[in-house]
């Protein structure tokens, strides 16, 4: 597998070269190697404990890599006090604030640390963006969603060149999630975004590039189109009148790798669509089964993810 195919000529804002990290005897990251072009949106996916948060903390200098080099904006990242943080913004999965402060006071503290000019104007812009009021309410009374929105405001406050978000939509309601994704998408071209999530449809919706981390290794890293081409097997989706018929359909389609779910049967294929479709239809006519609908589909990111991490076959078999 070749990583990093489809790279554009645009300079890379972030580069990880042969990064390794272990906690005791557990190897969390092994030879992780990827780069993100400036202005792109990079979706970082992986199972729980795959090492996504550790990778982000290494980029931010919050953890020390055992081996390898990380550069942000061409400058190497150092553990503890890294100058590269001046051009990054970070939204942790559970952002922690000083509960005794108001949002304005907190953003003012962040603005003074980053040394941005026209603080009050920028703070007002950010509060407006995340729809929080500039009133006297202290942060300790905020809901988790409100804290997440304040986290977004502080992450974007210094107009970062690289924005790192760790599962940013996990605490948001559907409307908030939609708004946040639109906000991230609107940053395309100006700010490079690296975000991790379990919600693969979010990645599919806004990402230019996707990295799939599994067992501490980056198993795939490319544009969505290239991942589809490389790992995504197209499929034929049949809708049957009921679940019982769908089960019978799954049996008559053998040896094709049909997957039965409720009243639907999915048949992935590698040959030409016509060849497989004719094979399916012939089997159905012989068995006297009439489907309600037949569709040709491309693989979802979830299927690509499962394929990449090696679960593809076990899931696709009926």
């Amino acid at each position, binding site marked *: 597998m070749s990583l990093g195919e489809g790279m554009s000529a645009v300079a890379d804002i972030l580069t990880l070269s042969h990064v390794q990290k272990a906690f005791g005897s557990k190897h969390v990251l092994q030879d992780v190697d990827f780069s993100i072009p400036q202005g792109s949106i990079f979706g970082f996916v992986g199972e729980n404990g795959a090492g996504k948060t550790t990778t982000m*903390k290494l980029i*931010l200098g*919050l*953890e020390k890599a055992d081996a390898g080099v990380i550069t942000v904006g061409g400058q190497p990242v150092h553990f*503890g*006090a890294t*100058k590269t*943080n*001046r051009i*990054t*913004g*970070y939204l*942790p999965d*559970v*952002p*922690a*604030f*000083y509960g*005794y*402060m108001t949002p304005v*006071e907190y953003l003012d*503290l*962040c603005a*003074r*640390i*980053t*040394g941005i000019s026209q603080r009050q104007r920028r703070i007002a812009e950010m509060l407006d963006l995340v729809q929080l009021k500039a009133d006297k309410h202290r942060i300790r009374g905020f809901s988790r969603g409100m804290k997440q929105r304040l*986290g977004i405001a*502080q992450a974007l406050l*210094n107009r970062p060149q690289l924005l790192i978000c760790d599962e940013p939509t996990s605490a948001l309601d559907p409307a908030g999630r939609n708004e946040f994704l639109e906000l991230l998408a609107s940053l395309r071209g100006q700010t490079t975004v690296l975000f991790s999530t379990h919600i693969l449809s979010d990645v599919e919706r806004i990402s230019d590039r996707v990295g799939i981390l599994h067992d501490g290794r980056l198993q795939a890293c490319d544009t969505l189109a290239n991942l589809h081409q490389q790992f995504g097997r197209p499929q034929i989706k049949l809708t049957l009148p009921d679940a019982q018929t769908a089960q019978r359909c799954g049996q008559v389609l053998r040896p094709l790798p049909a997957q039965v779910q409720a009243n639907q049967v999915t048949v992935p294929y590698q040959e030409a669509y016509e060849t497989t479709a004719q094979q399916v239809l012939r089997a159905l006519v012989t068995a006297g089964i009439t489907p309600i609908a037949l569709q040709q589909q491309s693989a979802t990111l979830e299927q690509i993810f499962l394929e990449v991490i090696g679960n593809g076959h076990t899931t696709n078999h009926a």
Partner: protein
Amino acid sequence: MATLPTMLKKELLETWRTYRFLILAVVVLIFALMSPLIAKLTPDIMKMSFGKTLQLAIPKPTSIDSWTQFYKNMTQMGIFVVAILFGGTMSQELSRGTLVNLVTKGLPRWVVAVSKYISLVVQWSVALTASFLVTWGYTAYYFPDAKTPYIWQGFVPLLLFGFFFLAVILFGSTLANNSYGGLLFTILVVGGLYLVNLFKAAQNYNPISLIGNNMALVQGHKTLGELGPGIAIAIGAGLVLLAGTVILLNRKKL
């Protein structure tokens, strides 16, 4: 360096809004009001308690009794309250993850440690000075004698011991993962210093000497110069502990 005043302002706002300074001020002002009053009322209390069964003549209280009461309260209960109030000053930030947003914005970690230490020193200095002045006023009112002529000489070593003690608290709070761990470290250090004090040769160099000779200084039986080695060790150890706090914090995972 430019972020130091910003973080100091944040620390002072925190101690004000979380009522830590208020609690400290109230406690030490209670000591300040109680010390002369207890000295004044002790003979009456004893008379009321024992009546005519007490054959001993109770001496008339003086300013010495008032200041003795003050230094006893401050060096025992006072520093204990300080340790409890400020034991979580760094460990709470580390366990809650509140420094993550600030450090990832480029805030140098040494600024966090130094601003916290300055904030603690300011609070201790203000609270102790206020308490001292109130005690002075009440003592002068109740006991207008000349038996305690060097009151500032007693005050200065206690103030300096506080600076050393706060450095111990901050280091312990950075070393430990919770407030109790920091408190335990502080108790162990102070306990160790009291053990060292058992050796007569070490007494003059022990920072503990700064809180053991206050009355001798106030009455003029000793001079500040005689406590010089202890003062130098306390200041030196305080600076080493502050540097140690910065080194520890630089190595901490946030």
